């Protein structure tokens, strides 16, 4: 098993009309690392997230996630990779309205082939882990933004992913809710999960171990925090 959870070598993603999302990016992220990918909007960080999350494929270059060469996997293998190894957290939570926090989290396990009772049991544990044990029956509209994002994080970590991808996780939250979410991500990292946060917030990025900066689809800076 290779040491890198993410390994990009000379990755380019070109869109129709000659627009480049990524241009010759080489980046390696080790297992259990905590990394921020920062850049202004349009810098290619969302394309980066999609490529790393195997939601999109590179036009050229090699993408290896958890030791798998993505280019050689078919749709069903990529789905398996996402189902078993990768957790996503989105800026706008993507919770199902009218469904309780418990079931929102449990449905995150739908494609692992686990029975419903076991899904709920794991969901309860995950909600407990993010400090929402008292909110199991609440629906999204009954929760604050911070609670919704913590529910979404619980949904991602219920699958015990090796890699958690967070896309502007604090972007829709006030600063105190945002702080709770950041603490949670730091905690996850401490428990051994590789966490990659995509953000345009330099203050947030500065609190993580490593910052990879992007501009115009290129990786322009990659530094480790010296603590």
């Amino acid at each position, binding site marked *: *098993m290779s040491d890198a959870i993410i390994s990009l070598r000379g990755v380019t993603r070109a869109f129709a009309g000659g627009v480049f999302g990524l241009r010759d990016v080489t980046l390696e992220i080790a297992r259990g690392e905590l990394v921020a990918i920062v850049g202004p909007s349009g810098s290619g960080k969302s394309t980066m997230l*999609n490529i790393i*999350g195997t*939601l999109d494929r590179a036009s050229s270059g090699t993408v290896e996630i958890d*030791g798998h060469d993505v280019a050689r996997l078919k749709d069903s293998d990529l*789905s398996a990779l996402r189902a078993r190894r990768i957790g996503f957290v989105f800026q706008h939570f993507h919770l199902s309205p009218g469904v309780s926090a418990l079931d929102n989290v449990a449905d995150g396990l739908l*494609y*692992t082939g686990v029975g419903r009772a076991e899904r709920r049991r794991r969901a309860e544990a995950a909600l407990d882990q993010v400090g929402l044990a008292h909110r199991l029956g609440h629906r999204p509209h009954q929760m604050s933004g911070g609670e919704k994002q913590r529910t979404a994080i619980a949904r991602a970590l219920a*699958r015990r992913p090796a890699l958690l991808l967070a896309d502007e996780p604090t972007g829709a939250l006030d600063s105190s809710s945002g702080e709770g979410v950041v603490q949670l991500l730091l905690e996850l990292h401490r428990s051994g999960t590789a966490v990659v946060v995509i953000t345009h917030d330099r203050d947030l990025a500065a609190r993580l171990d490593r910052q990879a900066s992007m501009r115009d689809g290129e990786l322009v800076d990659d530094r480790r925090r010296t603590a």
Partner: protein
Amino acid sequence: MNISLEPARLLPLDIVRLAAYGLRARPLRVVLSALGIAIGIAAMIAVVGISTSSRAQLNQLLGELGTNLLSAGPGTTMFGEAATMEPEAIAMVGRIAGVEAVTAIGLLPEAKVYRTNRIPPSQSGGIAVYAARLDLLDTVSARIAAGSWLTPATASFPAVVLGSRAASRLGIGSSLIGQPIWLGGRWFTVVGILEPVSLVPLLDLSALIGWPGGKAFLDFEGDITTLYVRTDPAAIESVRALLARTANPEQPNEVDVSRPSDAIAAEAAADVAFTGLLLGLGAVALLVGGIGVANTMVISVLERRAEIGLRRSQGATRGHIRLQFFGEALLLALLGGGSGIVIGAIVTAGYARLQGWPVDIPLWVAGGGMAATLLIGGLAGLYPAMRAARLAPTEALSAT
């Protein structure tokens, strides 16, 4: 590959749950699009159900009346005159093997019937007068509606039993049993009124008098117009073959032999074409319902792109997404089809009860309705499901 991954899996029960969840989220839309299917299925079930119930009623009637009655009626002579048979025919036909009962009526062509002797002779009302044997009633499965049938005593008196239409034409209700009517130039007393006779509708517009009474009071010579023969059901064809020759050995060609129950059976077959037409209309309604389901599903896929993206990010394969939307379309159609079958059955039962028919909805109709529903739902769901599955995850997720 250094690690072999366990593939993403979706349990069959969860496919059903997903389909139900998708529908529960939009109840009004589900009800409206299921309604289209329901109307189509209900129309088809009701059309077939009502038609089979009506046929069941006719078959039940045939069962009660029996299909073993033969009539040997008057043909025409070679010269175009109405033919008659000799009185001895009754006894001769009775000797054919397999004959259980023989009875006869004889027309009195000159006798006319009036309410009173003051009615102008031209207003006879078209009521025919027959002399009837006493066993006519049982042999043709006729029933008395009011009063009584002729008895050996009343048969020798100027007494008359009226067919149902003849009675209403003369304006004689059941309360007027015992009233005199002007028949063949003298007064006869009404002793009874018949119910409509399904096997021999001819009797409905007749006035029936006793055989000896006809001879005594009107110039009846005893010639037979029509013989009615009940046979052993197994022997009906052999009796039928011998009947004309036996009834009139000299001119068998002047005898028309028929089986009165054939007319009722023909009626049962007659509405098949009409049923086919209505069934076609039901099928069109079903098709329109199916288009409604397809429309609903296409809109649903467009609206739920973010959900599709999220599911893909959680490990759903294209196949899983396809199954989810296909299952949703099937469930939607089944909901419509199921309620359509119930509505159709209720309509059929209500109509049949109103008509006094037995309720008969064949199982194949309900099964066929369900199969049609699944077919329509599957066809309607196919395209939206493919479309949902083809959606790229990144494109789906960017639609918030």
